[in-house]
């Protein structure tokens, strides 16, 4: 059975190679080839899943060793895959949602002449992401990690003729480098600490390492996670990444890739469990990000950027949960999966709206679309209800558990984390209601695009609506399916471990509080955007609103601190290089040059001088030899 694991990766990889190398002659069928291979991978995944379910909980880890990648004494890097409950969950999410989005893209990218290339990149992304979650050691994981980074870069900048897209791709790439640096240093540190970077040996020898080293490794892994998952302080790229085609935003920048950081933390649970300081930082990062993203999401008029803020915020929840330790791991992953469904669905819905509105993204120019796009409205609406945590829908179960776990952390910390998570839930309800109202309700505020074409909103073709419907079903029932009878907990527990915390507040009280927050958030949004007409031009807004529109000044901060600072640093380094380093180097060179010129004069061309030199040399040689004996 293990033999099948490689197939999971091989199928989309083959697709990527065929589509990217195949050239123009595949233009007609390329999108179907890509979709087919993605689906094939999903089918293999389901097959493996069925196999795992048929086994006992303790035998659900399959290992496939392909070959030894770098065989050096004392440094062994294997190409080995590990399929356990955690990676299985990801495989199903990646290939399942991935296949749906492939299908959706067939319709969405229909008029793009580079559609074949787009599907090649999508397949490349799937292969890299699967490699990331299936790798049995950190080095191979790093390959996948870089691979998804590459695919993300290529896809954000897919419409490279737009300068904004090219810049956004570059920005995403650069910010991710910072995180990648953390991962690579973490791997080096693991190698020096444990003598290996394979999961088994590293997790097995955690007891032998000092807490300081584990904390360092944990913080470096967190840095990596921050880069990939757009957590504060490396969050700035995600909003700009919305320049990519919407299916990309749905798949990579909502459902899968951006959750790789959560995967990394949960996978490294053994390291984090032994490093409480690192865990604390993880929870802080998660909490800050969940509020940060939520606030940004409130102020954005661009529907995709509002959703991007929401993604950041939801991943903040997951990171918070992952930082809580064994209480939270399972719920981090559960929220990750349910979020994969409803956020992908929301993005596809947004894409569908844009499709019908001449690619307009400004929600102030939408309004009243529910009548024109019923399927989109219903699926988007179900996703909306799921994300705000409407009772019975996916988000309700998974988010509730995280808030509960945050309170269960205990002490002041528990109150702060839990309280922040509750506030986050209220803000989530606010900004999502705002998106919903501005887009589908109220009056039409449609405006012709820059070419003067009036929008004629219409429902999208079936190839696009079917994936939306499937995802909507997942958004509705996923949470309940996982939670009733603790199915998901029992499934994942053997890998991540689980402990029940002692919450100072009872589960029922938390649910009530969450509901209260939800009602408050929806209520304020209704008061602001439902009762009153939405102005077509954004009002000036309060200081906070203006800051939030500018992504809470993240780019300004980066510009002042990093760009300016970097420039100053570069300038001073250049100065040091020119004066000190070049001085030493050139001085040495000049010294040797001068010596050379002086020695050269000895070579005067007279045989007699040469003979004297030889005679002197011989005398010295004899003298030195005699001297050696004398000494």
């Amino acid at each position, binding site marked *: 059975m293990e033999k099948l694991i490689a197939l999971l990766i091989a199928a989309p990889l083959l697709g990527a190679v065929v589509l990217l190398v195949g050239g123009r002659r595949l233009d007609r069928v390329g999108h179907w080839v890509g979709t087919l291979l993605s689906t094939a991978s999903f089918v293999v995944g389901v097959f493996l899943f069925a196999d795992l379910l048929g086994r006992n909980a303790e035998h659900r880890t399959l290992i496939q060793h392909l070959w030894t990648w770098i065989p050096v004494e004392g440094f062994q890097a294997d190409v080995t895959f590990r399929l356990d409950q955690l990676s299985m969950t990801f495989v199903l999410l990646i290939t399942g949602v991935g296949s749906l989005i492939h299908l959706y893209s067939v319709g969405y990218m229909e008029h793009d002449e580079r559609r074949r290339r787009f599907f090649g990149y999508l397949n490349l992304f799937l292969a890299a992401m699967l490699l990331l979650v299936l790798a049995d050691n950190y080095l191979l994981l790093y390959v996948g990690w870089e691979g998804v980074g590459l695919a993300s870069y290529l896809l954000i900048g897919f419409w490279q003729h737009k300068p904004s897209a090219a810049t956004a791709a570059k920005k995403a790439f650069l910010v991710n480098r910072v995180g990648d640096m953390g991962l690579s240093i973490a791997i080096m540190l693991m190698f020096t600490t444990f003598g290996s970077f394979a999961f088994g040996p590293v997790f097995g020898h955690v007891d032998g390492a000092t807490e300081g080293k584990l904390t360092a490794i944990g913080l470096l892994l967190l840095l990596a996670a921050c880069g990939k998952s757009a957590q504060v302080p490396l969050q700035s790229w995600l909003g700009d990444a919305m320049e990519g085609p919407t299916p990309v935003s749905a798949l990579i920048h909502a459902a899968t890739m951006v959750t790789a950081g959560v995967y990394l933390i949960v996978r490294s649970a053994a390291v984090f469990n032994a490093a409480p300081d690192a865990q604390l930082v993880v929870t802080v990062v998660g909490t800050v990000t969940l509020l940060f993203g939520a606030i940004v999401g409130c102020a954005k008029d661009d529907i995709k950027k509002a959703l991007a803020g929401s993604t950041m915020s939801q991943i903040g929840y997951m990171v918070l949960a992952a930082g809580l330790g064994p209480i939270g791991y399972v719920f981090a992953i559960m929220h990750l999966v349910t979020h994969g469904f409803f956020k992908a669905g929301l993005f596809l819905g947004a894409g569908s709206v844009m499709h019908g509105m001449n690619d307009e993204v400004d929600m102030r120019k939408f309004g009243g679309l529910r009548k024109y796009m019923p399927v989109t409205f219903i699926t988007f609406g179900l996703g909306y209800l799921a994300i705000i945590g409407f009772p019975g829908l996916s988000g309700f179960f998974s988010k509730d558990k995280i808030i509960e776990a945050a309170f269960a952390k205990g002490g002041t910390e528990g109150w702060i984390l839990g309280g922040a998570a509750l506030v986050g839930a209220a803000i989530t309800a606010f900004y999502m209601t705002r998106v919903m109202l501005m887009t589908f309700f109220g009056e039409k505020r449609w405006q012709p695009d820059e070419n003067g074409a009036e929008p004629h909103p219409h429902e999208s073709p079936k190839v696009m609506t079917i994936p939306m419907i499937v995802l909507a079903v997942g958004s509705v029932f996923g949470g309940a399916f996982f939670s009733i009878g603790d199915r998901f907990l029992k499934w994942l527990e053997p890998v991540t471990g689980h402990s029940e915390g002692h919450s100072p507040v009872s589960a029922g009280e938390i649910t009530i509080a969450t509901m209260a927050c939800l009602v408050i958030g929806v209520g304020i949004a209704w008061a602001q955007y439902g009762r009153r007409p939405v102005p077509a031009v954004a009002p000036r807004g309060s200081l906070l609103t203006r800051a939030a529109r500018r992504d809470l000044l993240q780019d300004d901060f980066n510009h002042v601190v990093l760009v300016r600072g970097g420039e100053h640093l570069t300038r001073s380094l250049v100065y040091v290089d020119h004066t000190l380093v070049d001085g030493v180097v050139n001085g040495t060179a000049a010294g040797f040059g001068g*010596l*050379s010129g002086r020695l050269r004069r000895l070579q005067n061309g007279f045989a007699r001088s*040469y*003979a004297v030199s030889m005679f002197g040399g011989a005398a010295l*040689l*004899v003298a030195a030899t005699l001297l050696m*004996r004398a000494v």
Partner: protein
Amino acid sequence: MSTPAVHSLWTTAADRIPQIGAPKIEYGQLSPTLIILGAALVGVLVEAFVPRRSRYYAQVFVSVVALCAAFAAVIGLAADGYGTTKAHIAAMGAVAVDGPSLFLQGVILLAGLVGLFTFAERRLDPAAHGNQVDSFAAQAAAVPGSDTEKAAVRAGFTTTEVFPLLLFAVSGMLVFTSANDLLTLFVALEVFSLPLYLLCALARRKRLMSQEAAVKYFLLGAFASAFTLFGIALLYGYAGSVSYARVAQVVDGSVTDVNPALAGTMGNDALLLIGAALLVMGLLFKVGAVPFHMWTPDVYQGAPTPVTGFMAAATKVAAFGALLRLLYVVLPGMRWDWRPVMWAVAIITMLGGAIVAITQTDIKRLLAYSSIAHAGFILAGVIATSKNGVSSVLFYLAAYSFVTIGAFAVVTLVRDAGGEATHLSKWAGLGRRSPLVAAVFAVFLLAFAGIPLTSGFAGKFAVFKAAAAGGAVPLVVIGVISSAIAAFFYIRVIVLMFFSEPRPEGPTVAVPSPLTMLAIGLGVAVTVVLGVAPQYFLNLANQASVFVR
């Protein structure tokens, strides 16, 4: 019985009817040398009896056949196990047939063959009066600029004597690496030196410079030979024998009998130390170590470039072969005396060669100083006094020979109206005009600089590793620093070729015959193969690294 007087010795010997037995000569084991010597003699006969027009072809034919046959003989001997298990001393103790000698003989023969290709090149010089000519003077005896010379040029004469001279030199080198007594060593030294002095004087262009170089080389060579001979005499006085084995035994104290005729000198350490120092000095002169190097730039520059290439490669191989044998077979008993001295020589040679090379403006002089620096690197391997030291030196010499001949062969291609354009400024922008030639030369320069994936790196690495293992870490550090200094001027030439604007009146690159192409091609091939996959050849050198005593 008291010690008999010299006179009584003589009388008793006469009474016994001295039987001077016919010396036992192992012709088979000496065949490489004998083939070359025989071919050289045939070459002399060719000069005497074959019509002028056909001499060139006859000489090239004889030389190529001889060199190939001798090389085949070396391979045959090695395959027979003479390099390892059957190593022994032939010709009544005069010649050693063992791993190092066979390996180096093979290298010398190949260097001779490749050098011969460049000697035989006749397409580079513009045809003089309808005759294709090579790099050598039309008539060596004609005074430069005289009417006789002009007549000879007009008649299209060429000095085909260079081919037998080359063979004589090669035969001397073959013996030099395998000489197993001091007299054979000296004879071999002279046998290979004299033809080289002559060859240096034979340049077709810039004849005065060439003759000056030859005279300097001859004078200084003779001077050095005198030291060598004096050293041999002193060693004989110390040990009472010229046989390597015997001298070695006396040096390390395992034999203490005193030859009554030398009772006054034997065992006098001063004789040993001075004699060894002078003998070593003679060999250091040949390898071009500082401070005995001063002939090198002048001779390399003045000699015809094909001769320079051959000489730079083969002389160095032969001289290091002899030096190794002397230090490892004859003088290991006094290694505590010579090692520190050789340390000093190696250091000043590496640094001196590299530093003075920085300010050179002539490509041939530049390569001359580079060869001095390389002599220093090889000395570092010699000083290791270990089996690995020997094998690393063998490998280095093999790698270095091909790079050197190839590099000088490229130098012959870059020409202007005055012949070869050796001034560096004329090489500016060569990469734009003749990318292939410039790229090939760049490969050689990178190999000289010891950049990975070239033979130069593998060789330098092996030598430094052996030296470090032998306890000479400071030497290795200085070696690496010298390499860094040396890299500067090698890379500078590359920069000059590829990143400078070509000069309008710059030189042209002549299209050579397949002979030079073969020489250059072999150089590049060996450089790359030894750089990318050196293991086979390192093993070979390692197998060949045991001297016979």
